């Protein structure tokens, strides 16, 4: 799976996202995207289209995370973090992305 991060994406968020995928045994590829107006959902969608496994994660400058699949409509991500997200939520998004790859329930 591919993770698109905007320049300001917090390192703590990225670390947990990647850890969530790693625990599930799915490798992640980090891609730096230039500063642009896109939010996490847009980043995630671009990442998904970029990913050979069709699953992408986007982390925006505000630390919001979204998970997307290449075949889902652009505005309908598989999951996103809420406003007061913390490390457990970030970890969960990485886990969710990995479980889409593995075809396991997202829960």
């Amino acid at each position: 799976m591919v993770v698109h991060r905007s320049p300001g994406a917090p390192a703590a968020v990225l670390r947990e996202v990647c850890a969530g995928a790693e625990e599930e045994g799915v490798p992640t590829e980090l891609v730096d995207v230039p500063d642009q107006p896109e939010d996490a959902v847009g980043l995630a969608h671009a990442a998904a289209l970029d990913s050979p496994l069709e699953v992408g994660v986007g982390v925006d400058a505000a630390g919001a995370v979204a998970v997307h699949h290449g075949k889902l409509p652009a505005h309908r991500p598989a999951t996103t973090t809420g406003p007061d997200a913390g490390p457990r939520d970030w970890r969960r998004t990485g886990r969710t992305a990995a479980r889409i790859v593995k075809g396991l329930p997202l829960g």
Partner: protein
Amino acid sequence: MVVGVDIGNSTTEACLAELAPDGSLTYLGADLTRTTGVKGTPDNTVGALRVVRDVLARAGRRPDEVHTVLLNEATPVISGLAMETITETIITESTMIGHNPTTPGGEGLAVGTTVSIADLTAQPPGEPVVCVVPAGWDFDDVARVVNAAVAGGVAVVAAVLAGDDAVLVTNRLDRAVPVVDEVRAVEKVPLGMLAAVEVAAPGRTIRTLSDSYGLASVFDLDPDQTRAVSPVARALTGNRSAVVVRTPSGDVTDRRIPVGELVLRGAGRELRIDVDAGAEAIMATVARLQPLDDVHGEPGTHVGGMLAQVRDTMSDVLRGADGAAQPASEIAIRDVLAVDTFVPAEVRGGLAGEIALENAVALAAMVRTSRSRMQLVADQVSAELGARAEIGGVEGEMAVGGALTTPGVDRPVAVLDLGGGSTDAALMTVDGVCTAVHVAGAGELVTKLIDSELALGDREVAEGVKWHPLAKVESFFHLRHEDGTVQFFDQPFPPHVFARVVVLTPDGPVPVETRHGLDHVRRVRRAAKSRVFVVNAVRALRQVAPGGDLRALDFVVLLGGSALDFEIPELIADELAPYGIVCGTGNVLGTQGPRNAVASGLVRAHAAASSPCPAG
């Protein structure tokens, strides 16, 4: 015009027909609605009126055209359900961790002394240790501390973690070891004790900790100690990972909960049977006491409580005209169906939310009451519609009458009415003599078994699992049906059904919240149907068959809501085929399927009675 109305426990059905002066009938329509209130009580009026108005509206007729409303003489049979767990698994002294996390780390078997990660570096070198990591530790820190300890000579052979970090930690270790994670109550793991940790390769199960002599080899146990740990081995069978800690008196027990005895009276005798003996033994006892007069549970025991609860619910429901509940002591239980079942339950003393399948017994009980107040319903219906309202023949007889309108059916015929609360059988001989019985247990019990065996905790979802075929959502755009066929969709499925076993309801796929695969859910569903309806079909038919011999039956017609099920009819037909019985789903009037038998039977009987010459 006449309308037959059949008020059932769940469903109220109507059949509308034009009755010619010569007694011949023209059917104008059929309809159904949910029964309002308990069958046989004045609350039924609302539903009865609704279904009559509906059937008239659909036929384009006016209420004032109705001459007579025929009501069934509701058999005052209601039924109750109870379930009791009869085993309980208890872990003492935190002997084992057997919860099967989805992502353990490493592979293999290792034995060492349990040491908290905080004390790791202080360990003497060379002695094998199992590192225990409390909640809150970051995986990078865990790996750093373990690597440092190992570099310092401490032989860390395995680890047990609170968080879901096993793979993360293993990936960062200089030397890989088996790691079991998601141990919620890791702080209760006894420290300074010898422990074994085993993790199998993906798709495999552990082989050593799930074997008594494997444990003996690992911990160097003598024969007595081996005997003591053998329940641990059995509890870990089938897992991909496990931890066993050797504590002085740790144990896993599969305790039988004393449930008590059922006291059954019938055929002039009284017999007692321990509920522990299982459904088969209970049902054999029931069979010996036919007809049953009453059933009690030994007071002060679980089964005593179970039956008292059934009786209480009924007494509450059976309020007299004066609003007074019928005293529980006056309520006689005339049949019970016992079913062996299991309940996934959290293990007492477990450190990681271990689940054990506990044995349980489900009981359906059937009560006959003396207080049918159908006349009240008839009076109210008559007043509202301005038509005559008559209370017609016996339910079983009417059902047979309706069933005989199914193409291909002839007397002698037996009907099986597969309802919600009870399974009813009626036999009509060549000469038109009719016998009928009601036995406890039907669709509601099936739903309850599915609900508890899958630990759904939601009757609606369980009802859905019963009604509809299953599928597995395999991507956002396709699913695989029960039979392996694949179906694609244009619109993506919502994420909450992704990769889940779902029930295909008319409103779309509904997820079944379970860790089990589709096949397990399917097996539970079919077993529940078969343990209730196949068992009851045979039981009920034996009671009406001449000489109790199923071979004496020719045609069996399945009726009622549960005959609409997509597999119950075939399960029953399969069971009855070896007896040379033709069994199939009723098709009342050639059009109504298994519905409307009693309602149309009432109309037919009325026509026969008012016709110049008796009907053939």
